[in-house]
């Protein structure tokens, strides 16, 4: 069996998949944590990462007693850190290929 891939969510799908109410999604968008395409909630389209972002930010907020801004900041810094680590590993690997004879 080969599975089908689907890569966008609308507003209701995002709410139901992330297990949150609509006002939480609106709040998350208002904080710039998610940037859907479309002008208003009924037209919003979220990318494939949106469900995971919502779940993570909701958990961070709840588990670490953070406000939305704090949770968003934690998430941004963590993701940036991950990205830099990956980039660092990649550049190191390339440098080694260049230096090692």
């Amino acid at each position: 069996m080969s599975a089908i891939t689907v890569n966008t969510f609308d507003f209701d799908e995002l709410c139901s998949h992330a297990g949150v109410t609509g006002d939480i999604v609106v709040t998350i968008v208002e904080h710039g944590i998610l940037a859907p395409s479309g002008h208003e909630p009924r037209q919003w389209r979220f990318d494939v990462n949106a469900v995971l972002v919502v779940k993570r930010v909701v958990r961070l907020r709840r588990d670490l007693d953070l406000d939305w801004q704090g949770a968003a900041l934690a998430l941004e810094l963590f993701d940036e850190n991950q990205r830099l680590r990956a980039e660092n590993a990649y550049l190191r690997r390339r440098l080694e290929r260049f230096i090692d004879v």
Partner: protein
Amino acid sequence: MEFKDYYATLGVPEDADAKAIKSAYRKLARKYHPDVSREDDAEAKFKEVGEAYEVLGDAEKRAEYDQLRRYGNRAGEQFEPPPGWHGAGDGGFQAGETHFEGDFSDFFESLFGGRGQRRGGSHGFAGGGHGFERRARRGQDVELELPLFLEEVVSGQPKQVRFTIAQHDALGRREETEKSLNVRIPKGVVDGERIRLKGQGGAGVDGAESGDLYLKVRFAPHPRFDVDGLDLILTVPLAPWEAALGARVEVPTLTGRLQLTIPPNSQTGARLRIKGKGLPGRSADGDLYALLKVVMPPRPAEGDEALWRGLAEHHAGFHPRSQWS
């Protein structure tokens, strides 16, 4: 079932006051929170810490736990709640009321039954979550890393993915389901991208829809090629005379080999683009870049010196460090 030492889990002494316990919990919760932690096994540790705080952070539960501890129970020892222990006797699981997804340990459940408040609950994509429990529950989403060799990315062959979903059924029973599916790797996929497979996560409860499977693509490091988006980079070592005179060099690609023409007077660091020999893209394929690297022979051979001297005299006007002045 083993007796759990919640004091050791939080790293606090037995006589720690509520404030010290809270601050120890907060510190460890930050350290092990699965959404921001890089520690090994962060999720399991976060759950342990949450469970320990669930007990020690609640005066009533802490008193009950301390009482058991004074019975002489020690961490790691086999533990059975004493006969008539009231903690487990308050109804235990009642479908629809308790938080099934609270993965508390058996030890905790035997002491406190369904009295957990779910502090660090619904991690690892256990769907739903706090405050949204209902009888019909959407199946849980599952997130997995999908390591791929570059050869697999190029081949377009379906990749078999096996995983286990642990979730609770309508009666709160924990069950593990093994799943195996063949996933077609979409063209144009890049390292770190997430693929969502609709309905391939945990089964829904009471007719609710299934969860999704999220695969985070990870390219395994390749012995020859580095990846930059859809482009591949291959470092090509050249003898000094190949770089000077130009050469035809056979280079590997992910699907075979090809002849690459090195132009005369090539420099270290120069990149030659081989169109379309990178990773497959949605509209256009990536390119392969040959990155040139001039290397000296590891050992001098007889007569080298005279030859190099000849070159040195010939190039008397060349100053490789002229930029320094």
